[in-house]
């Protein structure tokens, strides 16, 4: 703001370098005649005649100012020709002063009573409550522009200083404005002195600073951060109020020296403080660190960002630091890291368990009357890992069990449920049950023993003797049968496992031919957001048709290659079975 004001003054300046005097020059145009003061029957104060009269004539630049200032208050200047020169003189002085200050002359009525003050000079940074700045304040009258001032302690002080010549300080002056768009209440500290028959007054606005301090305090409180300053030469230490709060210290006990502060630091972190001290000794760069500090009965995590100022010899003079209590944040971050570590651990364990239960086999399983390829793709999303399974096993009586399934849930719980389910199905299959009997029993078992587990499964029993497949699927997508390049769904659905204790399942049956392919899978392969699962099934069928139409030599490999997961977030399980000619060994039953 200050820079802008100065630049504005400079840019305006044609003859003189500063804004106030320049306004006097600019007023030659008569561009901004002020109406207020002209209506007042003004009489100059006694001091005006003491101004140096020769100034306007000795400086070519100022000579042009005279008629300009006269246009601001022509009546006043004609009554006292020396006043203009005084105003120019005072303005030249104010032009080089920082802060808010102006010089005003009293205006008197015919009886000699002061009725107003006319501002004839102002510092470049001077700003009033209306936002007028610097040169814009020249020509402004107190009564006209700030009528609420009349009669206030400020007004009284103005009158006293004119009368007595004794300077006054006024703090906590409350200014009230009724103009729209202007702060209704504001407070000021002012200094008023008599100068050259007028009043020189400087002011600072207190409410802005108070609001700034309140905002700063709120920021410190919300961020649980404070600041401190340690002067290493004078020993002076200043702590913000929040710094006392962070350290549970009574402000009446005063701040801590750096040495005393070090005694509160956890012994393991003392080295951190020592390293920081070395940094401050040699570098002006801010240095950040975190230490544990004893506060009350416990330890707080304190993060510090501090920097040192040095003298010419490089000795540190003062250390200024911003200090934040990050205990809660640290605790949350640590908890989160622990939770993530545990999750990763469980994830690794689950994947390992999956691999133990279903070892990855890249080569197809070769069984009597069929070849089987299987692929298990663990979920990328932890939330899904661990529930999918497949099983292919020679039952030893010329039959083969083929099954895939899915346990809702994830992690070790799902993986262990999956393992139990898979073994139960295998056991029931070895006991000679058909798929419908297997799933009916399994459903009852789940409802009774694990009501928390929901599962789906497709179970098939292939008899190599007559190439008959008997199957059922409980809450599970149907398998596909590929004969040549034609794809069919083998539908014989039942309800999912573990919900309805009275559920019963029946088997479908189909006679297969050599080179037929059976495609079994879990829903991750066909499920995708915004899509009907059956659309996914159709897409998979199309891909299979495409792959099998050219009559590839290895139909099994071609089918496996054609089917890719559509949803990497979920577990996917794919098992493709190719019916082969029954070998002599496998065919001994039939």
């Amino acid at each position, binding site marked *: 703001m200050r820079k802008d004001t100065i630049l504005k003054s400079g840019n305006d300046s044609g003859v003189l370098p500063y804004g106030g005097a320049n306004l006097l020059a600019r007023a030659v145009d008569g561009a901004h005649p002020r109406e207020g003061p002209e209506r007042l029957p003004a009489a100059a104060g006694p001091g005006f005649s003491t101004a140096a009269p020769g100034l306007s004539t000795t400086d070519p630049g100022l000579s042009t100012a005279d008629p300009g200032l006269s246009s601001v208050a022509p009546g006043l200047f004609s009554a006292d020709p020396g006043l203009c020169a005084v105003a120019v003189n005072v303005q030249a002085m104010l032009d080089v002063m920082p802060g808010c200050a102006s010089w005003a002359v009293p205006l008197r009525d015919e009886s000699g009573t002061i009725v107003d003050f006319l501002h004839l000079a102002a510092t470049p940074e001077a700003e009033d409550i209306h936002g007028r700045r610097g040169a814009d304040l020249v020509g402004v009258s107190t009564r006209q522009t700030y009528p609420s001032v009349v009669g206030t302690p400020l007004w009284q002080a103005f009158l006293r200083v004119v009368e007595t010549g004794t300077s006054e300080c006024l703090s906590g002056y409350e200014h009230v404005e009724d103009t729209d768009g202007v702060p209704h209440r504001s407070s000021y500290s002012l200094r008023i002195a008599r100068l050259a028959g007028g009043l020189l007054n400087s002011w600072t606005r207190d409410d802005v600073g108070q609001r700034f301090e309140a905002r700063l305090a709120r920021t410190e409180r919300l961020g649980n951060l404070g600041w401190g300053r340690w002067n290493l030469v004078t020993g002076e230490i200043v702590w913000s109020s929040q710094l006392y709060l962070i350290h549970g210290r009574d402000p009446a006990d005063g701040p801590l020296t750096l040495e005393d502060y070090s005694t509160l630091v956890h012994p393991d972190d003392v080295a951190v403080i020592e390293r920081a001290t070395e940094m401050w000794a040699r570098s002006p760069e801010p240095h950040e660190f975190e230490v544990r500090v004893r506060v009350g009965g416990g330890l707080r995590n304190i993060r510090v960002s501090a920097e040192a100022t040095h003298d010419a010899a490089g000795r540190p003079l003062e250390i200024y630091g911003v200090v934040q209590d990050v205990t809660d944040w640290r605790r949350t971050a640590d908890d989160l890291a622990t939770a993530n570590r545990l999750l990763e651990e469980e994830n690794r364990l689950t994947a390992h368990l999956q691999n133990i239960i279903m070892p990855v086999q890249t080569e197809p399983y070769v069984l009597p009357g069929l070849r089987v390829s299987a692929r298990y793709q663990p979920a990328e999303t932890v939330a899904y890992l661990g529930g999918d399974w497949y099983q292919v096993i020679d039952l030893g009586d010329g039959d083969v069990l083929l099954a895939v399934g899915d346990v809702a*849930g994830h992690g070790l719980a799902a993986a262990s449920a999956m393992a139990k389910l898979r073994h139960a199905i295998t056991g029931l299959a070895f006991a000679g049950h058909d798929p419908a009997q297997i799933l009916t029993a399994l459903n009852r078992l789940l409802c009774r023993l694990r009501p928390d587990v929901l599962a789906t499964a497709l179970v098939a029993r292939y008899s190599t003797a007559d190439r008959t497949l008997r199957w059922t699927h409980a*809450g599970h997508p149907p398998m596909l049968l590929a004969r040549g390049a034609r794809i069919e769904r083998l539908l014989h*659905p039942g309800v999912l496992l573990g*919900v309805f204790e009275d559920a019963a399942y029946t088997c479908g049956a189909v006679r297969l031919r050599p080179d037929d392919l059976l495609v079994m899978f879990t829903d991750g392969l066909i*499920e995708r*957001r915004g899509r*009907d699962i*059956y659309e996914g099934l159709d897409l998979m069928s199309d891909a299979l048709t495409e792959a099998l139409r050219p009559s590839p030599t290895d139909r099994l490999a071609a089918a496996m290659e054609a089917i890719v997961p559509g949803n990497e977030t979920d577990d996917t399980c794919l098992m493709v079975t190719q019916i082969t000619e029954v070998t002599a060994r496998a065919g001994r039953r039939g």
Partner: protein
Amino acid sequence: MSDLHLETSEAELSATDGGTAGVVVINGAFDHALHAPASLFLDEVFAAFGPYLILDLSGLDLLDSRAVGLIVTCWRRATDQDGWFALVGAERGATRILWITGLATRIPIFATVKDALDAQPPRDH
């Protein structure tokens, strides 16, 4: 009874009083990410409306197996307390899993909430 509402980045759940049953509408993706917040939400729904609920799924574009588990839990909870539970809008693509799992053959399904309310058996109390 006040309405309940829950919004996540991927889904929106609301529950209103249908007169004789609470009507829960779930829009968006009903998947593993919604599992925990939806469980809590449905607890509140049961507390507010009792075991008489209609679940409107017509605004779903994903319904995964975890969500199926939650629907089963709701159905069990309502029927265990001698209440009534029905689904609406389960003929659409995203809810196909309800048919594949066979739940659609066991849980009553209606085209609209009004149809469901009309078909609701009289409450004992």
